[in-house]
């Protein structure tokens, strides 16, 4: 591939790097309130999206670049578009920030973390993957604490940073072990070859490496029991960044995990598959049950995120092309449902804990906000005809077809549990339309005002949940 070709293939990232660095430098020379930077950021993401589509329209640009380090393919395109869209929504959500939340650093770091996500998805070697993860994580640590006057935000950022670093170290150890066992860190054709070709000892070591890698990645993806940082961090962190961090990195990590393991891993390594199965089941059960007990909605969503990671892991445990396709769709609907829900929480209380009680009577105080929350939650729950239903259905179907009917059954049962807490919010939002008596005191107060850009972001998430349900599968099939 020519140099020009590779420059073109990575034009979205190049745009983001230039914009990200540019925004930071611009602010250093000409300090402002972030107004210019915000437009530059939006423009850069739009341009990056256009570049992505241009790359996608020239399939000859698809391929592996830089000596087997990065791959540009349909998955990359999908991920880039999703990242740009979700990134735009995050920028919109913090549009009306009071200055501290929307500085040049904020936009610069956000752009850099987007590049990290792209690299994670594109990478084809463990070192590149590690670089991508760090490129994503370092800006996020800083972003989490960007609202310095909030004590909770700083504490959350510190926790996020320390545990994130710990996870990175565990993963790096896994990389070293993988190199020892497999004599390669490239996963252009999947990291793990047929165990027969390795011999017993090396295959065993490969499994140990897998465990370390998986634990490191499990931290980032908030799989049980490596999720424990997420409720605290989500509860305390800066609201738009929590919405972002709880959604987009998970998508990137999952797509990368699919690439690392390859379609044949689950069948070839029963120990690895069992490990993923255990983690998946525990995540689904624990996440959903504990979410049921929460009163702080950010914590509830954190545990719901753990459960959703469990659903995603089903695809990895089952393996095969069908489950990868199912996972891709699931990730898309998860991204919009989860982002939307977090943004609604942010609309209700950016600087404080939002409890279930805050939702009481929301339908009467801001009907659109309540409707958006209901749609996003019911999409997460998997109610037809919303996107979440098809996402979960595709995963369950892949599980049944792969001979894991029991796994699908557990997933289904935990889904019913999940409906419990999603419904808890819905009934509070709409339940107080259902007043017990005329004139009885209402806990909820006055209308909820939401800045227009944030509302636009929320409505986009709601619309995506609906459109992905009614037309999504058709669109995806057509695109393929």
């Amino acid at each position, binding site marked *: 591939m020519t140099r020009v070709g590779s420059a073109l293939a990575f034009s979205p990232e190049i745009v983001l790097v230039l914009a990200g660095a540019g925004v930071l430098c611009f602010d250093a020379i000409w300090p402002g309130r972030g107004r210019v930077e915000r437009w530059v950021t939006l423009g850069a993401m739009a341009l990056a999206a256009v570049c992505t589509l241009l790359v996608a329209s020239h399939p000859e640009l698809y391929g592996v670049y830089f000596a087997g380090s990065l791959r540009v393919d349909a998955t990359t395109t999908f991920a880039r578009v999703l990242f740009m869209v979700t990134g735009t929504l995050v920028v919109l959500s913090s549009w009306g920030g009071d200055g501290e939340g929307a500085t040049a650093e904020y936009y610069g770091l956000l752009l850099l973390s987007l590049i990290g996500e792209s690299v994670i998805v594109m990478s084809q070697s463990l070192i590149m993957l590690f670089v991508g993860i760090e490129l994503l994580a370092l800006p996020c640590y800083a972003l989490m604490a960007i609202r310095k006057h909030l004590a909770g935000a700083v504490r959350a950022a510190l926790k996020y940073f320390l545990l994130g670093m710990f996870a990175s170290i565990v993963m790096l150890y896994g990389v070293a072990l993988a190199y020892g066992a497999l004599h390669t860190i490239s996963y252009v054709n999947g990291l793990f070859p047929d165990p027969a070709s390795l011999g017993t000892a090396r295959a065993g070591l490969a499994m140990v490496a897998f465990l370390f890698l998986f634990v490191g990645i499990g931290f980032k993806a908030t799989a049980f029991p490596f999720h424990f940082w997420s409720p605290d961090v989500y509860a305390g962190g800066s609201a738009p960044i929590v919405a972002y961090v709880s959604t987009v990195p998970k998508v990137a990590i999952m797509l990368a995990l699919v690439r690392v393991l390859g379609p044949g891993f689950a069948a070839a390594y029963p120990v690895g598959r069992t490990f993923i199965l255990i983690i998946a089941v525990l995540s689904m059960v624990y996440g959903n049950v504990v979410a049921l007990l929460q009163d702080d909605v950010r914590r509830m969503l954190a545990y719901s995120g753990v459960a959703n990671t469990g659903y995603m892991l089903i695809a990895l445990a089952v393996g095969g092309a069908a489950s990868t396709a199912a996972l891709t769709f699931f990730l898309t609907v998860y991204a919009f449902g989860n982002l939307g829900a977090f943004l609604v929480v942010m609309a209700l209380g950016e600087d404080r804990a939002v409890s279930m009680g805050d939702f009481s009577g929301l339908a009467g105080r801001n009907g659109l906000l309540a409707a958006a929350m209901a749609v996003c939650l019911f999409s997460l729950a998997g*109610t*037809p*005809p919303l996107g979440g239903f*098809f996402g979960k*259905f*595709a995963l*369950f*179907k892949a599980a*049944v077809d792969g001979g894991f*009917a029991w796994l699908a059954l557990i997933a*289904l049962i935990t889904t*019913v549990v999940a*409906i419990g807490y999603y*419904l808890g919010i819905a*009934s509070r939002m*709409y*339940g107080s*339309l*259902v*007043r*017990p*008596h005329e004139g009885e005191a209402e806990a909820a107060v006055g209308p909820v005002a939401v800045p227009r850009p944030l509302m636009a972001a929320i409505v986009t998430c709601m619309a995506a949940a609906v459109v992905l349900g009614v037309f999504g*599968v*058709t669109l995806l*099939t057509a695109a393929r």
Partner: protein
Amino acid sequence: MKGIPVLSVLLLIPLAASVVVLLLPQRQERLIKGFTIAAAALTFGWSLVLLSRFAIGSAAMQMVQSTPWVPAIGMSYKLGLDGLSLPLVLLASLLTLLCAIYTWRLDKQVKVFCFLLLLLQVGMLGVFVALDAVLFYVFWELVLVPMFFMIGIWGGDNRRYASVKFFIYTLVGSVVMLLGLLLLYFWGPRTFDMQAIIAWGQAGRFSLQQQYWIFGALFLGFAVKVPIFPFHTWLPDAHVEAPTVGSVLLAGVLLKMGGYGLLRISLVALPKAFVAFSPYLAVLGVIGIVYGAAVALTQKDLKKMVAYSSVSHMGFVVLGIAAANSAGIDGAVAQMFVHGIVTGMLFFLVGMIYERYHTKEIARLRGLIGTVPALGVLFAFASFASLGLPGLAGFVGEFTSLMGGLQTFTAITAFAVIGIVLTAAYFLRTMQSVVFAPPEEDSAVYEGPRTMAGVELAAVAPLAAIALAMGVYPLPFFAIVDPVGRALAALVGR
């Protein structure tokens, strides 16, 4: 009219109308009400068009339209109509029209109410014409939400409890039903096309074990909706608290969804499980008949009495379905239709009585015939129709169901006679007191006009006419239903 997706139009009219209602200015209440009536009238007119185009005497699915929705998992937007669904479609569109007319008197949050009414109609009609399991489920859930709000916002003093109970019962039921539908998919032909699933079931390709599991899951969803004893406890609460229009549609249409589901899916797709379970179903039906009537007899609240009479009357539907011979199925469908007409009428009348006397207490309601003669006559008429006086509609449904029941389960059905006696007892007692007895000291007083309002007459007169016509000459009705009844009975060999 070739090429027009007639059934989609049926759903589209109320759906589009509900969106338009949202866009109308909130203050223009008369405009909103008028528009809602016009839309409901259009839908009803369209359902009559469907009737005129319906090939009577055929058991086949008609006016089928199908568009692939998610081909990868065998999901399609598929609608169809047969002798089973046509009466229920007519019932749903007629009752919605009458409710829209009755809504003319409403003065609280008119816009939202009209929106919910039209949305509810989309769901109700959708359930009866859907031929795709997921689509069926979507419409099934769509019905739940507007009804929850109708009870919750416009209901009586205890509406919060009643609406939440209604919501939780039916939601749990429908989630389990969804599990059953998914099992039909996974163990079946890997498509949600209900006709394909039915064909699979009739070819005996579900194992007996699978049939039991699926039947059980679906049964829970349907049983809550009917409601079949002992899943009925949400019904009296919901009815007592619901506004008149909510009660009419709840009793008139929503309860039928359960019976329809049993016939449309359980019986045809899972014939072996159905046959094995049918004696128990018959027992539950007869318990419902007797228990509902006995409890109705003890009620002091007029509306609650009518609610328990619904449990009793729906027992005949269950009995007819359990019998699963042609008379039983014809009777079950007839009873569903008749119950919708007659109980709908009763709930309208109870609402009108309540508006005048501000009480529903039977003991305090007396001498209706003296204060508002027309209302008294209509209430007596509806009571007679409901208790099964020959020559009126109630007799047709009950008699045919019982005939079917006797053919298959003679001994069990014999007990249903107790219910019939009790039904006569509570209706005659109530009628005697509410309509004819002279007022006493503690009786509720009404001193308004002695005539019924035009809106009130417009809401109940059509129902009275149908109750009479159906009682005198039910043949056209059975001409529509019987071919399907025979076909279904043949499937299970009865």
